[in-house]
């Protein structure tokens, strides 16, 4: 056996890869295949499928009722990525420019929220934001700053806030990694060549951190698009995202084929977004020359 492995290094590589390949096959590729196949089948009243091929599920996906939810999800994902970048970039820059000890402590601080379950943290926002009993509205009214409760809950604001809160570390970390590698002497060189603070940022720091920005944006955009916990809790049942609709098809409506079709469409959109983003941004990142 040993001898065989030595003579055939290709075989050895396959043996080493086999466990992860099996894992992916059983828990990723096959389920994905099932979803794709189901999406072309008819529903069974009790949650199963009838083996009759149909395109009806995909027609229903473009029903305005669902399609609007779809567009709304895209909008939320866009807002989440946008605000995560807006707030995350300065923070990443701040962390990356601290001395090494402080830097590590700050990155650790960034991770600490992850030690608590996401669901619990989202419920914490619920207690803060709720319209009549939420702490923010209660306090603001007690202190006489407002007369009526602010619309902090059950709307786009609440969902976006919850998602930005949840996913911003995924924006910060890749940007931080890119900025941390940035050679400080490049900034001095730009300054030496008459660049103002803004120009140093625009012409040197930003383009060189772009790979981090792209990675961060994708890492925030994709999970936000498929989010269902945050809109379920902070949307107050009034605002649904596509993730909630899909959950409902599987758990409530027992319409697995339609849920599958929605899932396939969502994955297609994510794939498309990723491709477009990496094509346009990736080009720029390559010119960013970190290779």
């Amino acid at each position, binding site marked *: 056996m040993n001898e065989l492995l030595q003579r055939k290094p290709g075989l050895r590589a396959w043996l080493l890869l086999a466990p992860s390949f099996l894992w992916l096959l059983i828990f990723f590729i096959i389920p994905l295949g099932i979803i794709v196949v189901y999406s072309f089948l008819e529903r069974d009243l009790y949650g199963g499928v009838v083996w009759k091929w149909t395109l009806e599920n995909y027609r229903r996906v473009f029903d305005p009722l669902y399609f609007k939810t779809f567009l709304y999800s895209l909008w939320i994902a866009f807002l989440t990525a946008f605000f995560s970048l807006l707030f995350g970039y300065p923070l990443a820059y701040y962390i990356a420019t601290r001395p090494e000890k402080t830097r590590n402590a700050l990155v650790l601080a960034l991770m600490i929220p992850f030690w608590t379950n996401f669901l619990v943290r989202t419920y914490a926002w619920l207690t803060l934001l709720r319209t009549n009993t939420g702490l923010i509205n209660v306090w603001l009214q007690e202190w006489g700053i407002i007369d009526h409760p602010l619309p902090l809950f059950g709307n786009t604001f609440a969902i976006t806030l919850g998602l930005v809160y949840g996913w911003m570390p995924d924006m910060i970390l890749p940007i931080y990694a890119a900025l941390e590698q940035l050679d400080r002497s*490049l900034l001095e060189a*730009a300054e030496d*060549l008459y660049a*103002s603070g803004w*120009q140093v940022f625009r012409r040197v720091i930003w*383009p060189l951190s772009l790979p981090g920005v792209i990675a961060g944006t994708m890492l925030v955009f994709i999970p936000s698009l498929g989010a269902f916990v945050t809109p379920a809790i902070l949307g107050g049942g009034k605002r649904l995202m596509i993730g909630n609709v899909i959950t409902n098809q599987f758990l409530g409506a027992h319409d697995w084929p339609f849920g599958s079709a929605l899932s396939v469409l969502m994955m297609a959109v994510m794939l498309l977004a990723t491709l477009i983003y990496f094509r346009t941004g990736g080009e720029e990142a390559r010119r960013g020359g970190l290779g």
Partner: protein
Amino acid sequence: MPDASSAAVELRDVVKRFGDVVAVDHVSLRIAPGEFFALLGPSGSGKTTTLRMIGGFELPTEGEVLIEGEPQGYKPPYQRPVNTVFQNYALFPHMTVAQNIAFGLEMRGVPKEEIRRRVSEMLDLVRLSGYERRRPHQLSGGEQQRVALARALINRPKVLLLDEPLGALDLKLRKAMQLELKAIQEQVGITFIYVTHDQEEAITMANRIAVMNKGKVLQVGTPQEVYEQPQTFFVADFIGDTNFLPVQVMQVTAPVEVMTESGTRLTASWAEPTLRTGVKAVMAVRPERMHLYRPGSGPEGPEWNRVEGIIRQVIYKGLDIRYEVFVAGECSLHVRMPVGRSEGTFQRGEHVIVAWPRAAARVFRSES
């Protein structure tokens, strides 16, 4: 002494402290327009900090930096009429060669047409025409170096600051770039201030050298002056090869007289002014100023020093032969003799006389 307006750069009693560490310790320098001036010293000698204070990347804790007679105060780098070539070049990796070189002019809003013209002039100057669209990572170290030089020179600074610009190149390329840099400097006529820890580089390129150690300027002079007339033990040791003989001072006024540990009397052209009769010191002599003779021959008289020794090692170097001579009870001396002298070559184990003229010997306080 020229007046203030005629110095390209002047440092007046400049001190730089980082916390408790004194990086630059009361440095005063005057650098003339058009000069190729080297700041030479080992790492941690304060030479780079001195350069960075001229460039505006650091501000002096005390003292003043003047450029063309004008105090620079707290001016940031982009308000000073100087440009810098950084140690690792610091080329913008996301820009082409042409974009890198154009950067300074672009920031100052120079018209596009003029930028294009001047970029191509610069590419000619550094012999990189045709490389406009390459990216820094596609260039060799020497080419990157030349881009960095062009990127700085295109701004026509009053003074160009160079921080160990050849440090990352291999020896052969470094030698070629030394000559090229010097030729470019003579061509553009801009004052160059050049930081290096390589004494050979400083001697090859500079009009004048300031030797620094521990934040202080120990000596300023032409390459010949610092090589032939070092003022301190450190300078004698740092620049070139030197033999150091432990001695005791017998007389400090000219002619300087000392005695070796075994009692041989020697004479020197100069002794460090702080030396007193009776103290321990070292005599410094360059290996090429020492000559070997067979016993009973060689020059004699008050102008000459002679010690006896045994050849311990002979190294043939092509241009010259290097001998290591063991002087009984004293030390080893390194002697460099041109090939083809009438005495012929000496063999290992041979008894010889090592002789050197008084003019070649200087006496320093020994540093421990």
